[in-house]
């Protein structure tokens, strides 16, 4: 991820001018970067290791919620394991809570159990190893 984008977004709140497509791609990159750091050994519960990423998340999520992209906002929060933050959002009101909750309830079906995840991840690594 380029350094320029990092500074640009955290400093300003003029996300709209960057275009929604950019926000979407940025959100994807944040997720990837977050996962890369966790795999590299960072503690997911420690905010300090992800301060730069979470700063951007705090800007993008409210922006998404305000612009009818609740699903994307939740996806990003799930990606960075900070779903609890959804409760702190002021932009969730009586107009959009139904959509947010519906999305949460439906995604719940597809959540995985941490143990299972560990198992399937090891399997995946094993398969990659055997391919080489």
């Amino acid at each position, binding site marked *: 991820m380029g350094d320029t984008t990092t500074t640009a977004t955290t400093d300003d709140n003029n996300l709209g001018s960057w275009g929604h497509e950019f926000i979407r791609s940025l959100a994807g990159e944040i*997720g990837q970067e977050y*996962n890369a750091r966790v795999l590299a050994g960072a503690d*997911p519960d420690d905010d300090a290791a992800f301060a730069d990423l979470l700063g951007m998340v705090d800007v993008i999520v409210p922006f998404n919620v305000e612009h*009818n*992209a609740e*699903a994307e906002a939740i996806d990003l929060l*799930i*990606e*960075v*394991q900070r*779903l*609890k933050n*959804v*409760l702190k959002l002021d932009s*969730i009101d*009586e107009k959009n*809570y139904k*959509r*947010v*909750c*519906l*999305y*949460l*309830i*439906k*995604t*719940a*079906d*597809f*959540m*995985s*159990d*941490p143990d*299972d*995840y560990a*198992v*399937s991840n090891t399997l995946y690594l094993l398969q990659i190893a055997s391919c080489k």
Partner: protein
Amino acid sequence: MLTLFITQEVLEAAYELFHKQSQYFDALRVALRMGNEEAIPDLMSQCSDPLMKKQMCFLLARHRINFEVEGDDDEEELNEIIGNEKLSEEFLKVAQDLDVTEAKTPEDIYKSHLAETGGFSRRREAGGAVVDSARANLASTYVNAFVNAGFGQDKLMTPDNEWLYKNKDHGMMAASASLGLIQLWNVEEGLAQIDKFLYSSEEYVKAGAALAVGILSSGVRNDADPTLALLDEHINGDSHIMKCAACTGLGIAYAGSAREDVMELLLPLVEQDNSGPNTMLEVSLAGLALGMIYVGKCDDAVGGTIVQRLMEASDEELDHSHAIFLCLGLGLLFLGRMEKAEAMLEALRTIEHKISKTAVIVLETCAYAGSGNVLQVQEMLHQCSEHIEEDAQHQMAAVVGISLITMGEEVGSEMALRSFEHLLHYCELPVKRAVPLALGVLNISNPDFSVIDQLSRLSHDPDTEISQNAILAMGLTSAGTNNSRVAGLLRQLSEFYSKEAGHVFCVRIAQAMLHMGKGLMTLSPFHSDKMLTCGPALGGVLTLIYSCFDLKSTLLDKSHYLIYYLTCAMNPRMLITVNEDLSWRPVTVRVGQAVETVGQAGKPKTITGFQTHTTPVLISSGERAELGTEEVLSVSSVLEGIVIVKDNPDYEAPETDEKK
């Protein structure tokens, strides 16, 4: 890549959001989905809107939660709603409105005059094959009971006692128990009718009556608590058949209630070990009843007792055809509770008997029921891959388990359907025999075209058990729908198998399910927009499924009364709109195919291809309703069952309307 999140946390967030918006009804739905029953009292006390409270109680009633409201102004009324005390009244009113109160006879269902060979076949048979009239009568008893369930009147049992004495032994028991199903939910009137049989000199009639009392009050709370009062003495009595009936009756009546007094009554029955020939049957039935009563509650006392009984049982006891119901009881105890069953699983693995494998799989699949856990599904498929022809009961449990795990979630169920196709091609007989059952579990009360097609093919399989299971599964998938296609198929099957008593019995039971409650009921455990799974309902269906593993020694033998466990799954599929005082208020509603609206912006339409009706209406599986008028607002966010509506304060009557 999915990150380390678990279902609970996501639901927790949704719960908090609803809570913050004071949407207590929706918060309650999420809480029930999480299995978090501790939240109920908080939500009830925080909610200040009396109408919403009532609506929440209707939800609790449908979910069969035994919750007592305390310290509320409307305490009595709310408890009445949770206790389903008015369910019978409302159901009968709907029946009247739809003009289906007229009682139906089994012949109305069989329609043998439509069969090509009509009256001829029977005359020819009389000389040749032996006509199993006892079993035919038994079948008619069940058909009569299921078709007229809840209507309070029929043409065989209520007019006089003649039909009862046309049956023998266990047939008599089924017949007198059928009174309970006919009077379903109507405790007071039902008791008056059953009372005379409770003191009959005939043991089987008395047992049936005891069972009837249990069936009658399935999911209904009554201050007098007649079931416990009347069955108490029989549990501790000497008569084997009375004990079996009382266990089953208690299991049906108190399913999901987690009543401690009932548990204390049943526990000694599980613990008993005077090795009489009938002991294991009693132990298993008591274990099953406990599982039903404590479904999904993970109770230590119940779990510990059942596991210990399994571990200490002798080999002969575990060889008993009904031992699997003891395993099922344990499974139900942990229904949907996932890793909470871990400790029990370890204990079960130590049993040195082939039942150990079955017990482990039953418990595992019950615990992960509805979770859609892919790794569990793979594990079950792995079990099926072993080619064995004997002692393969665990494989059957695994096949049904795949359905159990994936049920309720569309993508998963579709994938499961595909793997069943493979199982049919590549696996040994025991696995194949369970496939129709698994298809049934996946589509309860949902006669999907392709599934019925598949089952219809399997119902002509040369293997007796595959075809019998397929026939019963057809009944299960079409339960309470009056689906004419299935009706036609079953009629053909009754002719095709006219010389096989076992098959004919299965066809009759399937027909009984198809026309259950004259098409006003469903067996589906899913409700509230398919978000919640009702534990007792799923347990009832599973009891039927597991008895199909060995039809010869269950339904086709003496313990056919296990079919009555389906009562726990029976629910009216009606939508009624009521005023604030719970009197009927017919309004226009649109009913159509439900559309998934998740992730869509704005206010997307939730149904498609709708028709406009005036309530009350029946809602089929996969359908959804929305209000067709702006005159009223509904208190509930989901239009199912009994829904309270109130006047819309912003409504302005159109000026052109001449009536106003």
